[in-house]
């Protein structure tokens, strides 16, 4: 066995034992042994695929015209139809004795045909699913015992006598699997005033996504929502365009959070993407990054507060990044040259709502290492 195929053969054996919704059939191989026709059936599982019903494939409803051109041995199909030579006495060997043979050879023993003698061993080998016996170790333990007690004599060959004390089980390996996955929703204000901040917002969003992918072993789905005074989802296909998107319109925040709420509850919402997958907030962590310049024109606060109070319990974290503030010379803060008061209703509302889940930062349009680090430190602390 080479490295390339690895343990694919063992996977196949386990798959045959498993109960699933695949189709179980068998591949028949005809051989002649001691003048008898032996049909060896290898169990085969097939993945169901959409297919025509006409000529009746395996698992099909199969009322085809039944024309079996039964020529040649080893033809695929039902065993009744395969016209093997001298087809009267057929012995059916149901199991694959390959593994048994390997073990026996390792012990320097001869392998005989499965008969009465070896019946119990065969039972062990084809033990049903769920017993989780380690068959190889069981047989080795049995041989060990027989050698130690003198029961085993080489001239008489190998006697199968599995006792309870010989049974060996596999250890249950518990492995922590990073089951948790996350959805990362990037919300971006695309109104005209956001045009200068595309590069900066893409940097921050990309770094947070990178951080999440590291944390969740790559199990992160990213969704994009754009908004002006209305909000809509953008398909994953147009990811590159998302940060370049500029649209006309003023800014409002309530529609954004209502859209996210709708995405979680499976209600209708505006979308340019193809699929409207519901975000399963019960099963996975949900992160939201909202990038805006905070320039909402006189939107009243109380409806946003209601929406946020419904939304926040379903979120893991909400990052709010307000761009566009540059520190003025006199310590005051400027937005595009116009002085803004420190008391912004929306920013203050966010900060006051939930200090654990909501992280809000204001930043200038500065994509330097220092500033990006500062922003990320504050957001992801």
């Amino acid at each position, binding site marked *: 066995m080479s490295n*390339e195929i690895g343990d694919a053969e063992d*996977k196949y054996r386990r798959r045959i034992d498993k109960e699933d*919704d695949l189709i179980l059939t068998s591949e028949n*191989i005809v051989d002649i042994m001691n003048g008898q026709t032996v049909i060896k059936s290898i169990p085969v*599982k097939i993945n169901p695929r959409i297919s025509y*019903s006409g000529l009746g494939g395996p698992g099909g409803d199969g009322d085809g015209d039944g024309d079996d051109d039964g020529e040649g041995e080893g033809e695929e199909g039902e065993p009744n139809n395969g016209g093997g030579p001298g087809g009267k006495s057929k012995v059916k060997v149901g199991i694959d004795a390959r593994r048994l043979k390997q073990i026996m050879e390792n012990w320097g023993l001869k392998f005989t045909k499965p008969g009465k003698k070896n019946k119990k061993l065969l039972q062990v080998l084809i033990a049903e699913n769920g017993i989780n016996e380690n068959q190889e170790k069981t047989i080795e333990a049995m041989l060990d015992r027989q050698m130690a007690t003198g029961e085993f004599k080489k001239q008489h060959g190998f006697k199968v006598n599995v006792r309870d004390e010989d049974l060996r089980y596999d250890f249950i390996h518990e492995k922590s*699997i990073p089951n948790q996955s996350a959805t990362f929703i990037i919300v971006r204000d695309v109104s005209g005033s956001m045009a200068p901040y595309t590069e900066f917002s893409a940097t921050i969003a990309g770094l947070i996504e990178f951080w999440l992918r590291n944390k969740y072993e790559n199990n992160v789905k990213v969704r994009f929502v754009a908004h002006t005074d209305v909000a809509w989802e953008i398909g994953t*296909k147009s990811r590159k365009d998302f940060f370049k998107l500029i649209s006309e319109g003023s800014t409002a925040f309530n529609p954004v959070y209502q859209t996210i709420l709708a995405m979680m509850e499976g209600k209708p919402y505006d979308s340019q*993407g193809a699929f409207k997958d519901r975000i399963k907030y019960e099963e996975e962590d949900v992160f939201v990054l909202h990038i805006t310049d905070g320039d909402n024109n006189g939107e009243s606060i109380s409806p946003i507060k209601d929406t946020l109070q419904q939304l926040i319990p379903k979120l893991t974290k909400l990052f709010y990044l307000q761009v566009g503030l540059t520190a003025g010379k006199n310590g005051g803060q400027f937005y595009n040259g116009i002085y803004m008061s420190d008391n912004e209703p929306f920013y203050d509302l966010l900060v006051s709502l939930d200090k654990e889940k909501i992280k809000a930062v204001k930043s200038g349009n500065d994509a330097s290492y220092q500033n990006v680090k500062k922003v990320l430190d504050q957001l992801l602390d």
Partner: protein
Amino acid sequence: MKTESLEKLLINGREVKIVAMRGSIIDEKYTREANKIAKFMVEKLGLSFGNVQFKFLDNEEFAEKSALWQNPLPTWDTGQNKVINENMMQYRQYSLFEQVGNKFYAMVENQEYTEVFINQNDTRDEILSVIAHVYGHLHVIDNNKLSKTLEINNNKHESYRSRYRKIEEVIGINETEEFYNLTQTLSSLVDIYKDLHKEPKLDYYGKEKDFPKQDVFDVYKFVLDNMTWNGWEKEILDMVYDINQLSISVTRLKIIHEGFASFVENKYIEEVTKEDLGLGWEMKHKFLSVADVLSEPQMPYFLGFRLFQNIEKRWNEGKHGPVYELLTDEEKRNYSKNEGKGLEEILHIVKHNTDWEFIFSYANKDFLKTLSEEIIEKRMFLIKSQVEDSPWGKWILDRMKKTMQEELDPDLMRFELLLRTENYMPMIYIPKGEFLGDNLPLRQDLSFINRYSNMLKKESKLSEEVTAVFSLNNKMTRRSLLRLSKLLNLPVSLETMDKKGQPLILYVEVGGKKVEKIEDGSGPRFDLEEKSESE
């Protein structure tokens, strides 16, 4: 010991190297034989191919290589293929075994080689015929228009394997396998007829809000692009999609591949017979037991080989073309014109056709008639042995023969032959503008029936025989739909027909355990015109 010096083998002015290896050692005897056969192929028959490295492998290695060629990922079904292959070889179920592997780059020689695996347990005559057979395959791979477009990159597959293992390690084998199985079901929605479904040019500034903007035949790609997936899920989907591209040339060139290889092999055996009658007889005997047996797995060999022989004869005698078709039956029988263009025509066919084009434009009514007579004869032989003793035997046989002769209609027979070689998968598409995001609407496409035969023109409705063949209302499809809705977490509906040709919609809800049958909808698409409107 005196050894023959090897002459250089030139193909299109380029030197071609052919080596036979056992492990890491060159097998001189078979290297010489393989070169000799290659020379015959190139000079007498006009084949062309690149450097070849034959490798002799034992059963287990061979089975493994062959399984990995079918599916490069180390999954359970690769293991399954390996077990089946190995057992078949062990019990010598079919007498010939060869596998054309991938191309690889030999760094030292600065040359590209194609690997070919040969079972080392074969006898000398078997190995010689296998080598001759393989040159046929190599010619098709290098020259066929469809085959040329598909590049197989061995290194890429190696990286796929290691990525898959890594995902198994992180996510867990069970979960990865469950997802992999679902992608296999989705694989039946890959479009393998891309040349038939060329995307029309769209008006970039068009204001239509339809989604999708045209009929989508590659549903797999559509789902892959437009749905949100976890990172590892997307990676597996990507890999499986890429691997599925391999199956395009396998399914669509089955008859040409095997038929041409058998044809070439037969030519070589005839050549051997001139020098060594005993060896030639042995090879011919084994060859006929593979290529001239009418059974399901050997159908591509049988059909292709017969048809190529028929074409060679027709073109050698000049029995083709529009003038010939105008003659009466008696005139056709007496017609003879020594053209000798048989081989030329065959090389032309191999270069420019896929199986469908091959069967529909070259299998004429006379060929199908002789073929059907042969099929009836073989079937009757089987039935005869069963009913001979009974007093009603003769009556039953007469009756059977009559119905069988009625059944074999040449138009239908072409489709039946192709279906028997598993040459096409159902065509399914998402109709233009019908996708709303919360449901996956699928519809069956049967317009190819019209494209390839005039069955629809004769009658406005398909006969029951045909609808029973092309209906999708069966267990396999129903199971697949259930699994699809499980994978996509969306309701799935499929417009098709039942076995009597009545329109039917199969519908599955999210988390549903049963497929609902709704007798409604417009059924599968039949008209080509519908398509031309959208273009």
